[in-house]
């Protein structure tokens, strides 16, 4: 179980070519979809890392702050739950 899950999305307004392509596919299958945005999920194991340190990883490397936003989740949680 990763210690952190990072969800990275292109900022609103930044052209999301992958999202457009996926939407074309959904349209072709007959689904009525208004918009699609494609992002990335990165799971990392870093037992000693604080959320602040992970945020720093995102700002410096994992995301490009010029065009992307990110959200940090801790799926396992401090309680150690989860499948």
């Amino acid at each position, binding site marked *: 179980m990763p210690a952190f899950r990072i969800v990275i999305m292109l900022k609103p307004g930044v*052209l999301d070519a992958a999202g457009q392509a996926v939407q074309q596919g959904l349209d072709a299958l007959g689904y009525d979809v208004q918009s699609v945005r494609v992002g990335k999920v990165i799971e990392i194991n870093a037992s000693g890392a604080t959320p602040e340190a992970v945020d720093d990883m995102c700002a410096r*490397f994992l995301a490009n702050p010029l065009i992307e936003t990110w959200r940090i989740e801790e799926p396992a949680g401090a309680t150690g739950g989860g499948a």
Partner: protein
Amino acid sequence: MRWGVVIFPGSNCDQDCVHALRAVLAQDVVEIWYQDRTLDGVDVVVLPGGFAYGDYLRAGAIAATAPVMPAIRDFASTGRPVLGICNGFQILTEAHLLPGTLIRNNGLRFRCRPVWVRVESTATPFTAGIPEGTVLQMPIAHAEGGYVTAADDVATLEAVGRVVFRYCDPRGRVTPEANPNGSVAGIAGVASAAGNVVGLMPHPERASEALLGSGDGRRLFESVIEWMATRPTAELTPRAAASAQAAGSLAR
């Protein structure tokens, strides 16, 4: 003078650059491995095109952390010329040596065809010998060439002559039709604040001989050869150091 062509895992235009410089322009060229920590006394550094580190994460992002990068950063800070071509341009933006970044082309296509660019600034070693407004034909081959930067940065870059190349039609008109990838303001290439670091998406090395359909790209290399010949190395350092300090704010 000696040129260094940097080879990352996944570079694939390195030998095109070596050929254009060595065989066409009779230059002394060395290959610099991405794990090297020194640049072997070169006078000019070229980061070639390709897909360094498989373009994983973002194009250029992982290459920007390669072992050779601190040496390139130090080299650039002395005012010596650094050229990033295509993936090399992407690497330089990710390394914060150039402003902005490159995103996926609009229109969902990998674009591989000749384009025309207009020289917008002669304040770089790579364009000092080419009159402003000159139209050059070079090929592009990229999926992620859409130049973006913060909206206020575009005006700043234009105002201080850091927009070096713009996509245009064969007559030099910058039109939406001539823009192959959705780049903001038709920007095809930019420079660092000191002007010595330049990145562009088109491939000058693939347009360095008439046999290849265009010899226009060699003018960038010839320009830097002239520039180096007329500018004593000793003069570079203080000038560039001062402007490099002033530069920090626009990086990214």
